[in-house]
Structures are given as structure tokens and as C-alpha cells.
């Protein structure tokens, strides 16, 4: 091994350690039999038990699930359409609208939507406003994934379908949709993850009503840190990890088929 490689490896190892050690600590402390996040006392599952007896937390989890499912459903449909449209047609305005919410600081979208909901729609902030807000920024992510999939595909398939007399709808339903399906599902899972994790935009559009998971976690962190936070963190990590692995599997499956 060359000397420069050893430097690279150690620098990279440090970066990986930096990325993972904090999360490992959270997971380990979620099993620690002590109220303080300081020294290891002994193994316990009591923080998980406490979590499942925490009524407000359960309601928050349920609300967040409802929001994530609804927002990812809407964002997947609209995002897939946007991805298709941007790929197929030379559009100037739509890409700008789709990708800007992804690129700008979240707080700006949160503030803008807060003002809009309160002033224009006279909408009481709550689940509906959060679902709309999450859909707005998830559309861009779905569109990016779907568009990337389309860019990797051979255009002649669609031309062949058209030449054989397929209508645009038939081409879409029989050719395009099955081919981009893995990207659509990956986009849906990504939206779900983004929605259930989102703090900033939720914070601005939540109103005062129902408890929402990230807001509950924020309150716990800010006011009284108990190892219950570690337990909910570990469970959330498991959930989103599963989503990401499924999404990655779907995506690479498509890659492999194309490579053949």
C-alpha cells in the first residue's frame, strides 16, 4: 500500500467514526439503567417500557404516521408527474418550482407556509397544514429520483411504443410506469422518511393542537432529557433504516437489470 493511501484511510476512518460514534452512543444509552446519560450502570429495557406507557408519545407517533403516509402519497403522485414532465418536455418554469423548495433553507418554506395558512386560507394549523407543507418539499425529492431513473433509460422503447400505435396513456401505463416503478417506490419511501423526520417545517406549521413526534422529541430534549429520548431515537433509527434499505435495494435492482 502506498503511503498516501495510509493517510487517506486514516482520514476516512476518522470521518466514519465521527459519523457513527454519536449514534452508537444514543443506542447504547437507551439500554442503560440510569437516569443520567453519563456512566454505564447496567442493562435495562425500562426506557422502552416507559415509552410505550407514554400516552402522549403514542398519539404523537400515530399522528406522525398519518402525516407521513398522506404526505408521501400525495408527493409521490405529484412528484412522479413532475419528474416525467421535466424529463419529457422542455419546461422552464416547472423545474424551478419543483427544485427550489429542496434547495432553500427549510425555515423559509416554514415561515412562508405559516403566513399563507393563517392569512389566506384561514386554516387552523394542524394535521392538514403539516401534510400540505410536507408534500410541498417532498415533491422535489420524488421528482429528482424519478427523473434520474428516466435519464438512465433508452428512449427508443417509448418511441417503439408510439410507432406501434400506443396512445400516450397506453405508453405510460404499459411501458413507462412499470419501468420507473422502483424509482416511484423509492421516492415514496424517501418522502415517508423525510416527512416523519422533519422538524423545522413541522415546527412552523403545527399550530397548537395535536402532538407530533419531532415536536415531542424537541420538547423532551429542550426541557427534560430522560433516556426515553434515547429509546424513541433508537426505534426511529430502526424504522428509517428499514425504509432506506428497502429503497436502496429497489434502486440497485434496477441498476443491475440495466447493466445486463
Amino acid at each position, binding site marked *: 500500500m502506498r503511503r498516501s493511501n495510509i493517510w487517506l484511510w486514516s482520514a476516512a476512518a*476518522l470521518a466514519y467514526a*465521527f459519523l457513527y460514534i454519536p449514534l452508537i452512543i444514543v443506542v447504547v444509552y437507551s439500554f442503560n439503567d440510569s437516569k443520567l446519560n453519563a456512566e454505564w450502570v447496567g442493562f435495562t429495557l425500562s426506557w422502552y417500557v416507559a415509552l410505550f406507557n407514554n400516552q402522549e408519545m403514542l398519539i404523537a407517533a400515530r399522528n406522525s404516521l398519518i402525516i407521513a403516509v398522506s404526505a408521501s402519497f400525495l408527493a409521490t403522485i405529484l412528484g412522479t408527474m413532475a419528474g416525467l414532465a421535466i424529463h419529457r418536455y422542455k419546461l422552464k418554469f416547472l423545474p424551478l418550482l419543483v427544485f427550489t423548495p429542496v434547495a432553500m433553507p427549510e425555515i423559509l418554506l416554514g415561515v412562508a407556509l405559516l403566513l399563507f395558512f393563517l392569512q389566506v386560507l384561514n386554516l387552523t394549523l394542524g394535521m392538514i397544514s403539516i401534510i400540505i407543507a410536507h408534500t410541498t418539499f417532498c415533491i422535489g425529492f420524488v421528482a429528482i429520483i424519478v427523473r434520474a431513473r428516466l435519464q438512465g433509460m433508452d428512449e427508443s422503447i417509448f418511441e417503439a411504443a408510439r410507432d406501434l400505435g400506443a396512445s400516450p396513456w397506453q405508453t405510460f401505463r404499459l411501458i413507462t410506469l412499470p419501468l420507473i416503478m422502483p424509482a416511484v417506490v423509492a421516492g415514496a419511501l424517501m418522502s415517508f422518511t423525510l416527512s416523519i423526520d422533519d*422538524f423545522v417545517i413541522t415546527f412552523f406549521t403545527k399550530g397548537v393542537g395535536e402532538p407530533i413526534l419531532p415536536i415531542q422529541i424537541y420538547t423532551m*430534549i429542550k426541557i427534560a432529557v430522560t433516556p426515553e429520548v434515547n429509546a424513541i*431515537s433508537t426505534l426511529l433509527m430502526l424504522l428509517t433504516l428499514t425504509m*432506506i434499505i428497502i429503497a436502496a435495494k429497489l434502486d440497485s435492482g434496477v441498476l443491475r437489470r440495466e447493466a445486463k
Partner: protein
Amino acid sequence: MIKGNTKANRTAKWLVSGPPLLFLLVFFVAPSLIMLFTSLRFPGEFGGLAPIAAPAEAVHGEYGLTLETYQFFFSDILYAEIFLKSFAVAAASTLICLIMAYPLALLIARSEKRFRNLMVLLVVLPFASNFLIRIYAWMIILGPESVFSHFINALLGAFGIAPVTLLFSPFAVLVGMVYVHLPFMVLPLYTNLEKHDPALLDAAQDLGANAWQRFWRVTWPLSLPGVFSGAALVFIPVLGMFAVPDILGGTGDILIGNLIKDQFLGTRDWPFGSTLSIMLTLAVLAITALAAWFARPAAIPER
């Protein structure tokens, strides 16, 4: 092939692009315009906004619109300071991310093909955890009773330096910012470095360039577009971030994001909050334009 503009195709175009366009016009463009409009309004007596009164009974001039909040923003040095501080934090976070991400991205790009995807996945995977949890993890690590704090203070003590509090400090804010945004730097760098032709380095070596020269004269200049897109992806979100200073910072570590948050959820001064948001938007636009200009594919230098 039947080209383009049949009626069915035009209908299809509108059917596909119409719904997302409409949704984003209503829930993105309109809210942004409302924000701009709000920045010109007068604050209400009890928070929120003063009503737009009919000209006859108007207290604040004919249309109830004003540039007062903008004047206020530029008249108080405090806000300029907070903006400058936010830029400094964003620049420092970007630089640290770059220094940490570059070797990692380079290593991944130069690894065997079959390992690359796994190594990239390992960079992205921490994102599988909740954003707040990633910040919270550093509360544990930097907390006064943590192993890390004890170690640092023992080290400082050995040199006769008084113990320091790591949590609720600018240092903690910086660590949190870097931690949350590091993958945004690694990915564009890797995407760029992966495309480099190894033959270039061989050629440089044959021409007598040592390892450092090969990096500095070949790899680094070629990677600049990746560096600038990564820098934009870190700099912009850090600039608007309020959660990291909110959780890891002390009372003095307020950035633009915290200021904006306070206007809406604390003092409820909507017009001023909107003005701050507009200023942040302008800053973001300027940085995006700069990054796009720098990140354009480099022309081959002429000799």
C-alpha cells in the same frame, strides 16, 4: 416517428405537468409572495398584522404598507452582526466539512468499484436517524458529565488551563452544524472525483510529479466543481439553521434562523420576521448564483 405536437400529446403534456404545477403555484409561489407582502405590512398591536384599513380610517398611510421594517433592519447594527455571524458560522462549517469530506470522498472514488456503493451508503446511513436525534447525540457527548468532557478537561488541566464547558458554546454549534451536513459535502465531491481519469495521475507521475504535486496540480483543480456544489449544499442550510444553535448553543449563539423563529413564535412580529426571511432569501440567492458560476465546468486552461 410521429413528432411532438399532436393534440393528444399536448393534452398529455398538460395532464402530466399541470397538477404539480398547480400545487406548487398555490403552496409554494403564493406563500412566498405572501411573505414578501407581509414584510411590507405593519405589525398588529398584539402580534400578527395590523389590518389593512380603508384609506379613510387608515392610521398608517394610505395602503397600510411600509418599508419601515427594512429601515429598522438596516438601522440597528445588531442585525448586521447576527447576519455576519451566521455567514461566519456557515463559512467555518463549510470549510471543516470540506477538510473532513475530501479524503473520504477521494478514498471512495479510488476504491474498487464493488465497494464504492457500500461506502457511499455508509456515509448516507446516519441520515436514517432523526435530525433532532443527531443533534441530541452531541448533547450527550459534550455534556459536562461525559467521558469526552472529562478527557478534554483533564488534558487542559495537565497544561494548567481552567476546565471549559463544551456544551452550549459556539464550539458545540459548529460541531453540530458539521455533523448534520457532512454527507452533503461528501456526495458531490465523490460524484466528481469518481469521474477523474486515473491516466491523468499516471501521466503526471511519469512527468516527475510527486504525490503532493499530483494532488495539487491535477486532482484538486479538476474537483473544483464538486467542491463548489458541496460548499453550496452545506453553506445554504447552515445559514438558515435554527435547531442546532437552539439546542447546542448558549444564549449568545443566536443566528439568523433563531432570530426569524423568535419573530414568529416569540415576539410575534410578523412583518419583521418576514423582512428577515426576505433578507435570508436574498443571501441564499446570491450564494447560489456564486456557486453556480464557480461550479460551471472548468474550461481547459490555455497555454
